[in-house]
C-alpha cells in the first residue's frame, strides 16, 4: 500500500504540524469556515423554514429552490467569485453559505409543516399563542428532521470548504490542492485523509447533538434521511 505509506509519511512529518500552514491550523480553519457557513445559512434559512412550515405556504418555492441549489456546482461559484472580486473571504463564504441554506430550509419547512395537527390543536386549546405553539410544540416535535437538515448543511459545508481551497484559500483542502500542484502525493493523500476525518468528526458531533437536543419522547424513532 504505497498510498497509505506516503500519506502516513507526510502525516507523521513533524514539520507539517507547525506554523500557519500546519495541520492544526488548517484543521481549525476548516471548522471555522464550516461553522460560520452553517450559522450564516441558518440565520437566513431557519426563520424562513419556520415561517413557511408554520403557515404551510410557499412549499413549492422552497422545494424548487432546494432542487436548483443541488445542481449548483460549488467549484464554479467559488472560481467565479474569486475571478470577479478577488481572493477574499467573501468569495469563498458566499457559495458556502448558499449551499447550507437549502437543506436547513427544506427540512425545517417539512418538519414543522408535518407536525401532527392534533398536537398543535392541543397546544392552541391549552391557550398557547401562535408563536408559543411554534416554539413549544412545533419546533420540538420537528426537531429530529430539523437537526437532519442542519447535519446535511454541515456535511455540505465541510465538503465545500475542501473544494473552495481550489481558489487559494485555507482549510484542509489546501493540502490536496498544493500537493497536486507540486506532485507531492503524500501531501495530497494525507490532506484527503484529514478531510475524511473532519467529515466523520462532523457526523459524530451531530450524533451527540441529537442525544442532547431531541426530546426523550422522540428519541427511539429513527428519522428518515432527506
Amino acid at each position: 500500500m504505497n498510498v497509505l505509506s506516503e500519506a502516513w509519511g507526510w502525516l507523521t512529518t513533524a514539520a507539517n504540524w507547525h506554523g500557519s500552514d500546519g495541520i492544526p491550523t488548517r484543521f481549525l480553519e476548516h471548522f471555522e469556515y464550516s461553522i460560520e457557513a452553517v450559522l450564516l445559512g441558518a440565520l437566513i434559512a431557519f426563520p424562513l423554514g419556520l415561517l413557511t412550515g408554520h403557515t404551510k405556504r410557499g412549499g413549492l418555492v422552497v422545494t424548487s429552490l432546494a432542487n436548483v441549489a443541488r445542481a449548483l456546482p460549488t467549484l464554479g461559484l467559488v472560481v467565479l467569485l474569486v475571478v470577479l472580486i478577488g481572493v477574499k473571504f467573501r468569495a469563498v463564504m458566499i457559495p458556502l453559505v448558499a449551499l447550507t441554506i437549502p437543506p436547513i430550509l427544506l427540512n425545517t419547512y417539512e418538519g414543522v409543516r408535518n407536525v401532527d395537527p392534533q398536537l398543535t390543536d392541543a397546544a392552541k386549546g391549552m391557550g398557547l399563542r401562535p408563536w408559543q405553539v411554534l416554539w413549544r410544540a412545533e419546533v420540538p416535535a420537528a426537531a429530529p428532521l430539523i437537526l437532519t437538515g442542519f447535519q446535511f448543511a454541515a456535511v455540505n459545508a465541510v465538503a465545500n470548504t475542501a473544494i473552495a481551497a481550489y481558489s487559494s484559500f485555507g482549510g484542509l483542502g489546501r493540502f490536496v490542492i498544493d500537493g497536486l500542484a507540486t506532485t507531492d502525493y503524500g501531501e495530497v493523500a494525507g490532506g484527503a485523509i484529514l478531510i475524511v476525518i473532519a467529515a466523520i468528526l462532523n457526523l459524530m458531533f451531530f450524533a451527540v447533538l441529537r442525544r442532547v437536543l431531541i426530546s426523550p419522547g422522540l428519541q427511539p424513532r429513527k428519522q428518515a434521511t432527506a
Partner: protein
Amino acid sequence: MNLFPHIPSYLGTYGSLIQQQLTMALLSVLFGLIAAVPLALLCVRYPKIYPAMVALLTVIYSLPSIALFVLLVPSTGLTQTTVIIPLAFYSLAALVPNIVDGVRGIPEDVRLAAVAMGYTGIRRLVAVDLPLAVPPIMAGLRVATVGNISMVSVGTVIGVGAFGALFTAAAQLSRSDLAVTGIVCIVALALVCDLLLVITQRLLTPWNKRRSR
C-alpha cells in the same frame, strides 16, 4: 455578455463536454441503482440491518468528493472511473432509503391481493412491488442525478471534470465568462435530466392521475 463563448479548443467542444458530463453522472447513478435495489430489498427482508445500513450510507455520503477522488487516483488513475466510483456510492446513499420506504409503503391489502392472484417471489417483486414503489424511487433518482451532474465538475482537480474544466480555465485565465458558462451548462443539464425523470415517472405510473409532489 455572450452566454456561450467560444471555449478554448484544448478543453473540447460543448458537445464533447456534455457527453463527458452525462457519461460520468448517469453511469454512476446507474451503478448506484443496480447496487441499491438488492441492498434495499435485503433491508426490507431483514429490518434489523436497516439502521446500520442507514448509518453506513450517511457516513459514505458525508465523505467529500475531492478527498475520495484523489485517494482513488493511485488505483484507477486520472480516468472517468475515478470520478464514477465515489459518485455511485453517493447515489446509493440517496437511493437505498427511498427504495426501502417505497417497498415498505405498499399497502398490505395490495400485497395480499397480489398473492391471492398467484404472484409469488420475483414475479411479484417485478410486477407489483417495484412499480408501486416507483414514486419514492424516482424521488431518490432525481436527487442522485441532479447532485451527481453537479459534482462531476469537481473531477477537474484530477483533470477529468467535463464542464469543470471550464472552471479550471476560468481560474487560470481570469475569465469569469467561462465560469458562468460552466455553471449555466451544468445547471441546465441537471434541470433537463430532472425534467426527463419527472416525465418518465408519469409514464411509468399512469395510475397516479395527480402528482403527489
